[in-house]
């Protein structure tokens, strides 16, 4: 199994605050890798570094052997990394169908294409794919609804559909069940299990341990900007260092 994402020696400081301190993390292709840790540990910062939102100070981030440093966010996506945001980021004013068309067009045509002429609603291949992915999430019947009017759960599914439609090699999820009730959380877990079952590599930041232990094949624990433990779920469960990171010690 190859390493799809290799993060080594990453440092990132904001002013005087060291948010990431010599972070080392490897995600193997085809696995579900969870990143957990107390608040302020640097999880979101790390994610932002991977997708190109933040520039790291030193270290390396390699995706399939290629360095991601200094690469623009849209190029990083074109290379195969997709991100699901904490609050579902969709195009609220557009219909679901149009929401799907944008990522599909980006996947097919690249970062920029001056196509002023061909009608969006006549592109067979795009429409078929849109139907396929919306159906997957049981959203095809709502395709003409404005995305902003969806429930939170449906927005999450739409976002997942949008990400999956680009056939990503690595899917990054930032607290996908944040703020969800039990039932919704379980639905999301099932959904993510299905996606993982298709062989898509996933890296998930999560707080909900139930979610983590239902899905993760490997877990990295981040505390105060540093990976303190990494291993199999069973190894992490009993590790005293993890307990201490969450309960004892200073919270950043």
């Amino acid at each position: 199994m190859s390493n799809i994402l290799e993060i080594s020696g990453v440092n990132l400081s904001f002013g005087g605050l060291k948010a990431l301190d010599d972070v080392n993390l490897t995600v193997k292709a085809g696995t579900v890798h969870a990143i957990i840790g107390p608040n302020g540990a640097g999880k979101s910062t790390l994610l932002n570094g991977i997708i190109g939102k933040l520039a790291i100070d030193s270290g390396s981030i390699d995706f399939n052997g290629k360095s991601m440093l200094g690469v623009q966010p849209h190029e990083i996506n074109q290379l195969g990394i997709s991100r699901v945001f904490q609050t579902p980021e969709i195009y609220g004013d557009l219909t679901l169908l149009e929401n799907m068309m944008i990522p599909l067009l980006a996947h097919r045509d690249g970062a920029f294409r001056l196509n002023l002429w061909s009608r969006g609603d006549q592109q067979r291949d795009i429409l078929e794919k849109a139907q396929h992915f919306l159906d997957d999430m049981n959203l095809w019947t709502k395709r003409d609804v404005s995305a902003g009017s969806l429930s939170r759960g449906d927005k999450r599914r739409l976002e997942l559909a949008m990400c999956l439609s680009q056939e990503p090699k690595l899917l990054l999820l930032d607290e996908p069940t944040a703020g969800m009730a039990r039932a919704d959380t379980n639905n999301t877990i099932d959904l993510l299990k299905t996606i993982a079952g298709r062989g898509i590599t996933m890296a998930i930041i999560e707080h909900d341990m139930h979610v983590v232990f239902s899905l993760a094949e490997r877990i990295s624990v981040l505390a105060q900007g540093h990976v303190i433990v990494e291993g199999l779920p069973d190894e992490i469960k009993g590790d005293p260092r993890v307990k201490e990171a969450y309960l004892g010690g200073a919270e950043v």
Partner: protein
Amino acid sequence: MAKSTITPRSDLTLFLGFTAVVLLMPLWLQPFGAAYPDLMQKFAIFGLFAIGFNILFGQTGYLSFGHAAFIGVGSYATVWVFKLMTMNVIPAMIFGVLVSGVFALVIGFVCLRRTGIYFSILTLALAQMSYNLAYSVLTPITNGETGLQLTTKDPRLLDTAMEVGSGIPPTNVFGIEMSAWDGLFGFYFCAVFLILGFYISIRITRSSFGSMLRGIKTNQTRMMYTGLNTKPYKLAAFVISGMYAGLAGSLMAAVDPLAGAERMQWTASGEVVLMTILGGIGTLVGPVIGAAVIKYAENIFSAIDKSVLVDLFSFMPDAIGSGLAAVTSLFVGKGWHLTLGILFMLVVIYLPGGIMEGIDRIKRRLVGKDHASNDA
């Protein structure tokens, strides 16, 4: 859920309907007292301007307060061709549109480095700078305050080569004078461009490019992380809208061969904002309607003076009649800007979708809730 009512068929109907309405203007505008070529030309010219502006504002979500600068550039470039080359408007206008396109490319590149209010203020600053440059600095090119005009001393190289006679010849399209058919030729010339410009805007809106613009307006962040480089899309939208404005400016010069700096003031840019909002931002037809309404009001409303009102109210007892005339006179004639301002505020507060939204609401009441608008 109701299936989307936007189809190539519905768009064709819309286009044909629009074309018919425009071509028949000299007829149906008669009862409104607006069927004279000068005014109808203005409808077409400003309609074009507003359509282009809408692509940047309504579709992409970028509010520019400087688009009048492109009208100015288009006008000046066109008049220069008149002076140097020929009075044939076609080559002149081609040049005008190209020059304004290049100008828009430069300005857009600078301004689009920022978003939101910063972008708007940048466009405002650049536009005012262009206006000041045209008014007092670049006077060799623009002739400053007096404006750029034709003289008998102009070289007009191409024309003299083909011996078109002396004096200042009128503008023409390969020989047919713009003032032909009692001026109606000039109108139909502009109308053709309006119809073409409308068609192009339909294609752009329905294209994948259009989807990207709408994506930028709604959630630019998402677009970046979905693999799209938003910069060239925004720049393209800016240049396209700048070229529409340049075309409008060129047409202005074609029907009336002079160019003045006042066309470039930021208040002129403000006018197109009003037109677009009033008509219906983001819609296809809205901006044209807005442009027509405002130009109509400007020419008709502002010509109503107190005596007309006194006549209007003469059926009432004297005191009430003259009182009403006095009050309403504040809102027409020279005071029509007041009416415009109030109307604009009401639209922004209560009917942000403009006239098109109003029509939509009425349609729903009459036809029932299932009927969705078939205009994007």
